[in-house]
């Protein structure tokens, strides 16, 4: 009798275990996609430079170019040099995005030490960009020119990678007409990408 009870118990346990074995098993998957809105000023190698990119109009070093333009009634001058600034690239996984430009107020340095010299004739509207390059896929629009007073310069859709906006330091221009007081004028220009 005792043996029969033991056998029945063992059988019940086996059947119980069998019933407990799941035929299916599930697990969760969680995916978190970041909000990517990135913009970089890159050098000729397509890499964001470790040191800051810059554009320089040094007419102290090339006074003739300045004088000739002024003598001709005014015009736009190309930069004398630019550094680590061959293009601007953007990356976005937002449905739409736009890039704006802004600049800090111009700072004047009377570096020649001329008596009573004050800044004159140079404004943010005199610093202009006229893009010479082409835009890449998913850059929907780009202004044909803009100055440093600010505004939207480009827009697009999901870029699916880094996309060039098609301008660099060599596309900057400085508009002169001869009313500029001598000295050094500096500003910091910022490009910003944003999505609605």
């Amino acid at each position: 009798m005792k043996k029969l009870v033991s056998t029945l118990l063992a059988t019940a346990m086996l059947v119980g275990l069998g019933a407990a074995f799941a035929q299916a098993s599930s697990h969760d998957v969680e995916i978190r996609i970041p909000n990517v809105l990135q913009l970089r000023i890159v050098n000729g190698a397509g890499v964001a430079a470790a040191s800051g990119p810059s554009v320089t109009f040094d007419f102290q070093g090339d006074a003739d170019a300045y004088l000739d333009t002024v003598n001709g009634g005014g015009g736009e001058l190309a930069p004398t040099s630019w550094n680590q600034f061959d293009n601007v690239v953007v990356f976005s996984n937002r449905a739409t995005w736009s890039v704006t430009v802004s600049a800090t107020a111009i700072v004047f340095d009377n570096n020649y030490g001329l008596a009573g010299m004050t800044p004159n004739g140079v404004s943010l509207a005199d610093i202009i960009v006229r893009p010479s390059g082409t835009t890449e896929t998913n850059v929907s629009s780009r202004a044909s020119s803009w100055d440093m007073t600010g505004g939207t310069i480009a827009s697009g859709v999901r870029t699916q990678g880094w996309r060039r906006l098609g301008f660099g330091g060599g596309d900057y221009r400085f508009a002169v007409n001869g009313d500029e007081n001598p000295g050094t004028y500096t500003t910091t220009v910022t490009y910003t990408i944003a999505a609605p």
Partner: protein
Amino acid sequence: MTLRWLPPLLVAAVLGAAQAQSAGHDVSVRVPNYIGLKIVDDGGNIGLGATVRFDLESDPDAYVDAILGGGEVRPTAVASFADVQVAVRGGAWRVWVRAQPLAYAGPGSGAGLRLADLVVRRGTASGLAPEAITIRPGGSILGSWSLTTSWQRIVTDNQSTNGWRSLGFNGLDYVLLVQGDEDPGRYATVVTYLLTNP
């Protein structure tokens, strides 16, 4: 004289009869026709809360780099998902997989990411392989599969596994394919593996 010898003769006869007797009884053992499949943790226990996580919010550069470098992302975390094991006593058996539609929470519409962007490349990251006894000659197991909402057969076999045996993959073998067109936000699904014994 006769009476004096009778009792010993009777005793001997009784003893002789007892030694020749036999008795029998039945033993009934019911082995269950069980089949089982379980996701297990590092300790070999059923992986409660098994999860595969791709948290690219905490490392956006990894997301950007992945898009530029071929578009594959490995999980940033795997919990309680060290192996998938099956136990089949006998007969033909199959393993199937399917997933729930992606649930999305974020500022966009959830465009750009599909279930098919979740791929299992068996053993590539985990280093696991199906135990030799798991898949016998004539059986088969896929090397990789993308997730869908329909049941998809990934294993076919016809013999007993003789116990719990590994299918040779775990959460580390999951891969997320990204292209950069994914709406930012959080996506979730539940993946189910099903063992059948037709």
